[in-house]
């Protein structure tokens, strides 16, 4: 593998940050990942000092228009006619703190995001001069800001609020009326703009133009009346608009879906994976008291960077739907887990070899699919899953709308051609060879096996939402949404990533891996683990691709690991 080759030594430069010498690489990746000379802001970050900034974003082109990252720096003197740099009396290079040319005693700041470092440079990141610059910049940014934090959705995660608190001053010298700009502007179908709050950092414009490639946002009007806007009559409507809400450092761009729903400081954050397609974008679930309020993209440069698509982000409402399956049922009606599992185990133990078919869902986790495949191997059952295709877009959304197709293929539930064995299962039911059908999370009636056929077999169904298949199930086992359990998914590129539990499942609903573990144990006698960590580690030892990558639950970390496909 290329990454195991020894990398050439990195060329470094030594600069002083707050009087402390720090060695930093001479070149660092820019927003596109290409090497560019290291900037003051990056050097300070390496030194462990955060320079406040609004318009700078590591994955967007640098424009330097907010001026928040102003810092006072000192430069070594230029060589004179004799070719020697100016020196102090003790022979060290003389450093000249930058001053205004026409006002020599006034310190001059440089913007950290766009100033490249030179050897011997001194960065006064915490000096009184730098502090005064920040105070002045914040004061001018707040001139026309409405200061309506009490009704602003961004309050609590607002950079303007944070920096005003850390670097600003309490009193403003501004006495005039503030400039009023359009409020609650419907910028697009998912975005509302409050132009008064905007500090014109242009992050949204750059993201939309340079990342999405949809040049639909711009600034109109002049001077203090500058306003973010779309072209007249046009709507800000691509599949990535909601990322502008995330990168907006203030509350100017707000999500219609999250607008006035909950203050952010109440939200519990849980690391999870988006289930809208096979990309497996890393997300953060925001929930409060068992209600989910939003997804936010979670940075993972190997998968989704800082971004996620709108359709994925808004695909969570089904988790809290009122008609979720929450009662465990058998043929006679409501029952309980121990009774139902005993009946199912007895049924499967007595089933003839080859008389069982399993239709799993490629939206289930690796662990669940692995348990199902173990069960299938013991019962000599035929297994498959159901393909789910959608339209791909030019960035992150891909055609495969199943979250874990790769996982299903790796553990052996389905072949490369997902759904190719469905017709065999159908024929098996028709001929009476298949007497028991286990269906997980799919409405099989939409895929050729209709209700009449399903009445011929013992139907064991686990699902989250009601559908035609769950209506005719002999055993109905309510399952959990991904936000209600733990587990791992393998994305299309073979990255195994884990997700955490944010919510409690409704009613009787139980994580699929929990009851599958018990069922597999009862039927096959194979002992498993009662924890997801143990189960994953056991699976990692049994599935070839996972074993080759030497996966363990702990090693996955927050960002997952790649396996060879």
């Amino acid at each position, binding site marked *: 593998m290329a990454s195991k080759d020894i990398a050439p030594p990195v060329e470094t430069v030594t600069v002083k940050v707050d009087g402390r010498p720090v060695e930093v690489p001479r070149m660092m990746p820019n927003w596109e990942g290409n090497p560019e000379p290291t900037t003051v802001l990056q050097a300070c970050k390496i030194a462990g000092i955060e320079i406040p900034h609004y318009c700078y974003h590591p994955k967007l082109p640098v424009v330097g228009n907010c001026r928040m990252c102003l810092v006072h720096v000192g430069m070594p003197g230029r060589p004179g006619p004799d070719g020697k740099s100016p020196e102090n009396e003790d022979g060290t290079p003389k450093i000249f703190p930058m001053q205004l040319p026409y006002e020599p005693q006034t310190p001059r700041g440089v913007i950290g995001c766009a100033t490249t470092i030179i050897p011997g440079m001194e960065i006064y990141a915490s000096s009184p001069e730098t502090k005064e610059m920040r105070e002045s910049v914040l004061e001018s940014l707040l001139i026309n800001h409405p200061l309506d934090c009490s009704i602003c959705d961004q309050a609590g995660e607002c950079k303007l609020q944070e920096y005003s608190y850390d670097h600003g001053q309490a009193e403003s010298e501004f006495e005039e009326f503030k400039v009023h700009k359009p409020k609650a502007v419907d910028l697009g179908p998912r975005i509302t703009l409050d132009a008064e709050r905007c500090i014109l950092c242009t992050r949204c414009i750059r993201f939309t133009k340079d990342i999405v490639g949809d040049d639909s946002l711009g600034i109109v009007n002049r001077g203090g009346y500058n306003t973010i806007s779309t072209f007249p009559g046009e709507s800000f409507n691509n599949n990535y608009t909601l990322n502008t809400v995330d990168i907006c450092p203030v509350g100017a761009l707000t999500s219609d879906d999250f607008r*006035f729903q909950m203050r952010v400081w109440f939200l519990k954050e849980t690391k999870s994976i988006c289930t809208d397609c096979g990309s497996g974008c890393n997300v953060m679930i925001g929930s409060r008291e068992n209600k989910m309020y939003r997804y936010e993209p979670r940075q993972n440069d190997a998968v989704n960077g800082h971004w996620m698509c709108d359709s994925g982000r808004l695909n969570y409402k089904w988790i809290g739907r009122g008609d979720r399956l929450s009662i465990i049922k058998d043929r006679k009606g409501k029952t309980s887990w121990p009774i139902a599992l005993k009946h199912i185990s007895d049924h499967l133990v007595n089933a003839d070899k080859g008389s069982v078919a399993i239709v799993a869902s490629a939206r289930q986790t690796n662990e669940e699919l692995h348990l199902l495949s173990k069960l299938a191997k013991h019962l000599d059952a035929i297994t498959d899953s159901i393909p789910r295709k959608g339209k791909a877009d030019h960035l992150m959304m891909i055609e495969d709308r199943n979250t874990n197709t790769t996982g299903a293929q790796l553990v052996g539930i389905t072949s490369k051609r997902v759904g190719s064995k469905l017709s065999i299962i159908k024929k098996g039911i028709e001929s009476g060879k298949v007497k028991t059908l286990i269906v997980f999370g799919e409405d099989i009636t939409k895929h050729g096996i209709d209700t009449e056929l399903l009445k011929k077999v013992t139907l064991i169904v686990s699902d989250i939402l009601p559908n035609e298949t769950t209506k005719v199930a002999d055993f109905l086992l309510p399952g959990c949404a991904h936000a209600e359990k733990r587990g791992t998914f393998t994305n299309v590129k073979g990255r195994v990533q884990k997700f955490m539990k944010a919510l409690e499942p409704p009613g009787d609903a139980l994580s699929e891996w929990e009851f599958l573990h018990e069922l597999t144990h009862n039927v096959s006698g194979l002992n498993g683990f009662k924890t997801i960590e143990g189960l994953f580690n056991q699976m990692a030892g049994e599935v070839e691709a996972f074993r080759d990558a030497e996966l363990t639950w702990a090693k996955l970390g927050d960002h997952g690991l790649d396996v060879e496909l």
Partner: protein
Amino acid sequence: MKVERAKLTWLERLYIPSILNGFKVTLRHFFSWKRSEVYAEKQSGYAAKLTMQYPEEKWPVPNGYRGAPYLVKDEDKNTKCVSCQLCEFVCPPKAIRITPPGQSGEVDREGAEKMPKEFDINMLRCIYCGFCQEVCPEEAIYLLKDYAITGEKREDLIYNKEKLLSLGGKDKRAYDHHSQDGVTEGIKKWEKKTKEAKAQPEFH
């Protein structure tokens, strides 16, 4: 040490003389009412030692007393609360529960942006600490002087938005201190902003 109880005589064991003795004291006070200290005080205007006819009569509640928290209205009888949920956040016994308005904002007048959809205070939980009043950026919640909170059911003691607003009513503190040069100009939060915006020339 064991103390021997004095042996009661036959008369003492009958108890009747003791009871009569007790009545004698009561009757003496009953007939000498005009000579009593209490009578003198009442005549001189001090009624402090008299029994107060609670709940018909109530104590005058001192200023600064922390009674039940209610939502107050401004001088135009408008809701002041903007549903920022800081009181809900700061409330130590978690007595306050606000339902945010969602995208519509639930506004009832021009220029307003956000108001609570539902605002519940569980008076059984409230400990009258006054944090909600202290934290409120809009001065919309005040601890007024009610201290006898009663109800027949637990549900009766969860006050909703309508009840809190009607109990709070127009409170002078909610707008009066914004006066300049002795003239009360009031807050008129949204109204002023809207006026200011309309007065501004359009720039393109």
